[in-house]
């Protein structure tokens, strides 16, 4: 067992550019779930829009990035409106069901052979990240060592900028939630009727929260694909949403640091488990009937699912959370 590599790879994964993307996606979800109490089960849909609404105009229509970016933001806002209008005045479960359904619809469209000409189908969309590559002051192909792990210049750049972006978004959310506007959101989460009795337009606030969290989620999705230099539909399955849930529950719902802390813990643990199993199967330290080289990678998903269930049951405030801030109580 090469513990050195296991440790460094897990650490790298926890702070990689992909993790930064997840962190931003989870930050958006935190605005919905943690601060407003909106049960959005379709954050993967926002992330997919973020990646594809940016990639498609650039690759297929030759747009410049400064046109593609506003288009992506507009699409994201439209998606939030489309999700919110039919469901926000209904019980929380309706939003949950509709968001998971719409996220699936988006993924199916992106995967469909009918739209391969536009979306690249299951091959994904490539060749739209020149903007990021040109922006990078470091040599894109140079190798950099991080302990036993080696990464290229592009990933290093995306990692640094990604986490700066995540920190910026965290600050933005912190400022928002300190404002009177943010206090109304929290009051909606605590008691919607009370907020309404005080004359607040609950529906409008919920919609604004859905839009802001959704746009943040789209930015995260864009980052997730940009660091990979390819938009892949496989990234945007419903598991993405629930990993984001696990991240914000781990870090503490409705906490500014929550997504950052949660992401690092989540990816470190998941990648550590994965690496240990991978090494164990390769060196035959583990019998084949437990895991073999074909299915060791699935174990991490089982672990993630169980952790989500167990955390919500036994420690809903997360590892460092504050019990008073934790409310999963949307009627």
């Amino acid at each position: 067992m090469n513990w050195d590599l296991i440790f460094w790879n897990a650490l790298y994964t926890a702070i990689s550019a992909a993790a930064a993307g997840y962190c931003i996606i989870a930050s958006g979800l935190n605005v919905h779930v943690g601060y407003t109490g909106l049960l959005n089960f379709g954050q993967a849909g926002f992330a997919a829009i973020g990646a594809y609404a940016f990639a498609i105009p650039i690759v297929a229509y030759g747009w410049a990035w400064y046109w593609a970016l506003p288009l992506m933001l507009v699409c994201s806002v439209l998606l939030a409106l489309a999700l919110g209008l039919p469901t926000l005045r209904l019980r929380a479960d309706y939003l949950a069901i509709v968001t998971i359904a719409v996220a699936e619809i988006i993924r199916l469209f992106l995967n469909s052979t009918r739209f391969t000409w536009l979306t690249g189908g299951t091959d994904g969309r490539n060749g739209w990240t020149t903007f990021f590559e040109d922006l990078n002051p470091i040599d894109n192909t140079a190798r950099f060592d991080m302990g036993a792990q080696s990464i290229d210049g592009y990933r290093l750049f995306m990692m640094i900028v990604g986490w700066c972006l995540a920190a910026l978004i965290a600050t933005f959310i912190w400022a928002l939630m300190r404002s009177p506007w943010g206090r109304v959101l929290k009051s909606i989460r605590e008691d919607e009727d009370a907020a309404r009795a005080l004359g607040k337009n609950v529906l409008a606030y919920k919609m604004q929260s859905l839009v802001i969290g959704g746009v943040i989620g789209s930015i995260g999705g864009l980052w997730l694909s940009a660091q990979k230099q390819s938009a892949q539909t496989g990234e945007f399955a419903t598991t993405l949403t629930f990993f984001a849930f696990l991240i914000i529950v781990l870090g503490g719902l409705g906490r500014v640091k929550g997504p950052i802390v949660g992401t690092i813990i989540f990816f470190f643990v998941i990648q550590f488990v994965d690496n240990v199993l991978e090494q164990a199967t390769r060196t035959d330290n583990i019998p084949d009937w437990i895991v073999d080289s074909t299915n060791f990678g699935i174990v991490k998903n089982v672990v993630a699912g169980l952790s989500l269930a167990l955390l919500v049951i036994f420690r809903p405030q997360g590892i460092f959370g504050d019990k008073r801030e934790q409310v999963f109580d949307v009627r």
Partner: protein
Amino acid sequence: MGTDRRRARSVRILLAAFVSLLVVGAFPSATSAQTDDEAPQSVRGKVQNRFEEDGERVTEPVPDVRIVLEDAGTLIGEDVTDADGSYFIGLEQTGTFTVRIDVTTLPDGLEVAEEDEVQDVEVGGNQNVTRVFFLGEDTRNVQSKWSLLPQTLANGLKLAMIIAITSIGLSLIFGTTGLSNFSHGEMVTFGAFVAFVFNSDVGWHLIPAALAAVAVTGLLGAGFEKGLWGPLRRRSTSLTSMMIVSIGIALAMRYFFLYLFGGDLKAFQQYTLQRDPVSIGPIDLPPRTLFIIGASALVIVGVALFLLRTRFGKAIRAVSDNPALASSSGIDTDRVVLLVWILGGALAGLGGVFYGLEFGIKWDMGFTLLLLMFAAITLGGLGNPFGALLGSLVIGIFVELWTWIVPNANDLKTVGALGVLILVLLVRPQGLLGSKERIG
């Protein structure tokens, strides 16, 4: 289990090899080696006849078909397919051409679909581009769109029945406990896999295996209620938390199935039997499907009678309507909820077996079905079991109808149904049979 997993593994490897072969065949790389012919560029390919024989897809080469390469109507080159069905047209120039199959040289009874008759081909320097023509028996022109409608509706009915028996449980659980159980789809998958293990590993006939699956999935439902949801309710965990717990359970179960059984589509042993379809007017259905529709209808009628006529059924509906009132009028709500979980689990297991029979057994089949189930019960009115039936009927038929309205959209099958769900929420959020107080 060990040999089974190894078998699954080798199947996976074969599949991967097959897919990569297909990819290589479909997208020949620009740098593929030059062949014996001296022409720097070429267009080549095959003419193949695809048809179904005994339910299996067969592909055979079609010789002696003339293939013409044209540039805006002027002839550039031509070839006649050999015994392998292959043709080869060497090219001195590069550019964009059209390659056409000469339909007059086709053997009798074989047709090429009109949109496939002419294909565009772009040939760059030193490229060998492949264009394959697929023929088929002329089924397209005989069957007009309208004549396909009855068959589409029958397929929709079949899917509707399966959604109905699985979603009654989901609806009853929601009605009695308020929980939107996102792991209900995994109970369906569980049922299918239990039957699969009894059927192919233990070697039972499908019917006893299915009964065992129903029983075991019912037990799983009881286990969930006794071990998880009951205690959580007594701790007065919020419904939202429970919903997220159910998501976690669903995720863990789904990937556990993938871990145990692998990602390939599996089939029951007796699935291959009974292939001759029975014709009812314009509709052809295999006996298997007729059996599924009939058995589901019987089960649904049975459940409906149970809910309407028996004391337990009345108690379930009472708890659904108003748990506090039911409890204060002497109904043991915990027992009722336990019964609902057993019933819901058993029905999910049965639905899983039926779904597996029709569409194959796969680790994520439950998730696909879950969204349709949710669409059905929301459409019918959350918490109302008869609404669930009505909603299932609409959703099941709409899923198939969608592929009839939009051609070549098999991978978008569920999109139409999910779209209906969103529309209904806009217009009539309480669903078709729902009561208004549940929604706000």
